[in-house]
């Protein structure tokens, strides 16, 4: 029997997802036994031309990580879609935009101005900006164009499966890989995780139904390690986040930041968390309630940390 042909690609991402695929440890040997890696720029020497030359649907499965932010990302997403039978949005960036997606709070113009002119460490009197094409004696050089809108993989091409996480936990990665290797795939377009419910379901911290007088940022308090972090005023995202990771962050005293995305059936993760917060404020005085929520710094950036491009509005109005 032919080996399963596997491709891995990174678009706008930090590289963590590629490392996460290796986190499966010795199981990687099992992958090597049943699969042949035909494309993996971060680890092996392949050229884009190698993929271009392949006949359509030559690749059995493509694990695509990273958001779609540049013309190169878009080009590769479309090419790999044509060449792959199964397209998997692997990791939060490809699935829901993640940290690169926060760029959607700003216009491309304001981002470039900030980076190439305004930051305190920038010295750019000539206001030199990167160009997509530059003429050199050796010939024209080209770099990909940065888009105004960061998109997810599914907003660019048809996606068959989603693997959540920033990066996906080892057991989640293995759940997806095992399904691919054995050909026992779940329903098309589903999110592959051990849970479709909120993270709190698998978190061992004790909830007492306490309400909150003040919200804290993680550096401001040392939480009781046995008790629910949200009830201690930390913005723990578990109530609005899909489980399946094992709740390691809250159980280590660090509030969940929501990287597994929305729970099944929820469209807008950010506003889902906002709704939950409204129920835990300990006050019956409208003025005090407003003061308590005013203590939350950068609510939109916090609530939509991983999911801005898949939220209802997808981006902020450009200013």
């Amino acid at each position, binding site marked *: 029997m032919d080996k399963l042909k596997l491709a891995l690609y990174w678009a706008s991402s930090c590289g963590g997802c590629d490392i996460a695929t290796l986190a499966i440890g010795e199981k990687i040997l099992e992958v090597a036994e049943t699969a042949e890696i035909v494309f993996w720029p971060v680890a092996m020497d392949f050229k884009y031309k190698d993929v271009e030359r392949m006949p359509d649907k030559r690749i059995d499965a493509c694990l695509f990580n990273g958001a779609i932010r540049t013309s190169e990302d878009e080009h590769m997403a479309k090419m790999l879609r044509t060449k792959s039978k199964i397209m998997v949005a692997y990791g939060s960036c490809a699935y829901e935009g993640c940290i690169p997606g926060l760029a959607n709070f700003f216009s491309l113009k304001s981002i470039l101005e900030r980076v190439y002119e305004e930051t305190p460490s920038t010295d750019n009197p000539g206001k030199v900006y990167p160009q997509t094409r530059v003429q050199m004696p050796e010939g024209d050089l080209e770099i990909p164009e940065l888009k105004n809108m960061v998109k997810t993989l599914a907003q660019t091409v048809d996606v068959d499966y989603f693997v959540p996480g920033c990066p996906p936990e080892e057991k989640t990665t293995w759940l997806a890989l095992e399904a691919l290797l054995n050909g026992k795939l779940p329903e098309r377009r589903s999110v592959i995780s051990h849970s479709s419910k909120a993270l709190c379901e698998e978190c061992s911290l004790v909830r007492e139904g306490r309400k909150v007088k003040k919200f804290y940022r993680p550096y401001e308090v040392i939480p009781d390690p046995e008790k629910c972090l949200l009830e201690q005023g930390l913005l723990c995202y578990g109530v609005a986040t899909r489980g399946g990771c094992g709740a390691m962050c809250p159980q280590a005293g660090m509030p969940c930041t929501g990287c597994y995305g929305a729970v099944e059936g929820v469209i807008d993760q950010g506003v889902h968390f906002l709704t939950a*917060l409204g129920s835990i404020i300990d006050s019956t005085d409208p003025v005090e309630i407003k003061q308590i929520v005013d203590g939350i710094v950068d609510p939109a950036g916090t609530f939509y940390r991983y999911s801005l491009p898949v939220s209802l509005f997808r981006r*902020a109005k450009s*200013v």
Partner: protein
Amino acid sequence: MTRFEPKIVVFLCNWCSYAGADLAGTSRIQYAPNARAIRLMCSGRVEPYFILEALHKGADGVLVLGCHPGECHYLEGNYRTVGRMALLKKVLSQFGIEKERVRLDWVSASEGARFATIVNEMTETIRTLGPFEEKDA
């Protein structure tokens, strides 16, 4: 040029505000026809997602009306709404959306005239702001 007629979705709680709106009707108080009423059991039932979806689907403004603080039929439903609306307004401004497009206020069952005033005020506010347009490119 025709005058811009905003579409305003009004979420009304069953116990106070809807009765207040009803009283405005039975008292034949005239108010702007721009409001589209949606009755819920409590203003605490208004998930901020409903508000975003209303804007997303074509509303220019959203009003949430509930019982006065301390008078909620479910004791604390409207307090939850206060927190959510305050947070939502902060989030909206970070999205570049005018926070005046969303307003939370209180109307009791006996305040038909107050209901009419709030709807009229809101209509004028949104008329000044203009139609709600999402930036999507």
